[in-house]
């Protein structure tokens, strides 16, 4: 059960990040804050979850990271979605939809 739980967390986090990056490139801190804000604090990333995942997505070539110098002179590693990453969003959404429908059919859980 624990492994399923971990996989669900991992999968949902990947989908959330990819969806967010589909809108515009962001750096790590912005990703964490935007997801927290958009989910009302339900989904939160600590550094230990966020950065290993971002680098995993980068290894899969779903995102590409580049160091950028901000107007204030600071360097930030910005992540942007690659065409390959964009292609992953629809199948991931379909998988999650199927998952919620299956859960709903068993538990009566409503997928809002």
């Amino acid at each position, binding site marked *: 059960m624990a492994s399923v739980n971990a996989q669900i967390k991992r999968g949902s986090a990947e989908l959330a990040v990819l969806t967010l990056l589909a809108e515009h490139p962001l*750096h*790590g*801190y*912005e990703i*964490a*804050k935007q997801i927290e804000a958009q989910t009302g604090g339900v989904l939160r990333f*600590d*550094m*230990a*979850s966020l*950065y*290993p*995942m971002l*680098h*995993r997505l980068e*290894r899969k070539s779903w995102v590409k990271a580049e160091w950028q110098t901000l107007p204030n002179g*600071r*360097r*930030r*590693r910005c992540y942007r979605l690659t065409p390959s990453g964009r292609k992953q969003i629809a199948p991931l959404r379909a998988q999650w939809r199927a998952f919620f429908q299956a859960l709903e059919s068993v538990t009566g859980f409503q997928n809002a």
Partner: protein
Amino acid sequence: MPDWKQIVRKNLRVVGVCLPEFTEELAAHLEDGYEALLSEGLSAEVAFQDTIGQIEGRCRVWLVMRFLQEELMTGLIRGVALPGLLTSAAAGFFYWALALNHLPSNVIWLAGGLSPLWWWCLLPVWGALGARLSRRKGGSRLQRISASLLPSAILGTLILLIFVVGFTLSGLVNHYQLVSARVESLGLVPPGFVLIPAAFSLLGAGIAEVSSKKLGSLDSGT
């Protein structure tokens, strides 16, 4: 403003040494978090304690574990296993070629003659090859080192297994000479075929690291 890079380097030494590319990124994250807390009206001291709490105590242990787990597990095949196995094959093939051509591999008398000097001399090349292949596959520094050391690790495991089986059989036949011969060789074989080769491979990996850095700085300079 606290020097977050320095703080990250100090608190996350393991991450800094094995995965140096993360240090600046984590420092940037903490810097942004610290400034956000200041802008919310927290005092500098409270904001600092709150921010540094993300890389201290249990958080630090968890962070290091997650990074190492992710790097080791997900990159294990691409960054370590494949380059390491290729390196093992190259080192093994060379040793086999020496033996087949009756070239004197045991040329110096050290550790009971188990000192294949020429084989050792080329081990830095294989170590560098492992590290280089791992780098090409996007391996982190830890993975590059692991890839260069994989041949020694494989050989060490095999030798350990052989000794375990040998000791078991010696015990079964209860032959004093067999047992004493195995005890003697236990002190000779691992240094000659595992520890010294590991050091030579590591030397090669180190040279590959330095040369890559120099080439990288040359590229960025042009």
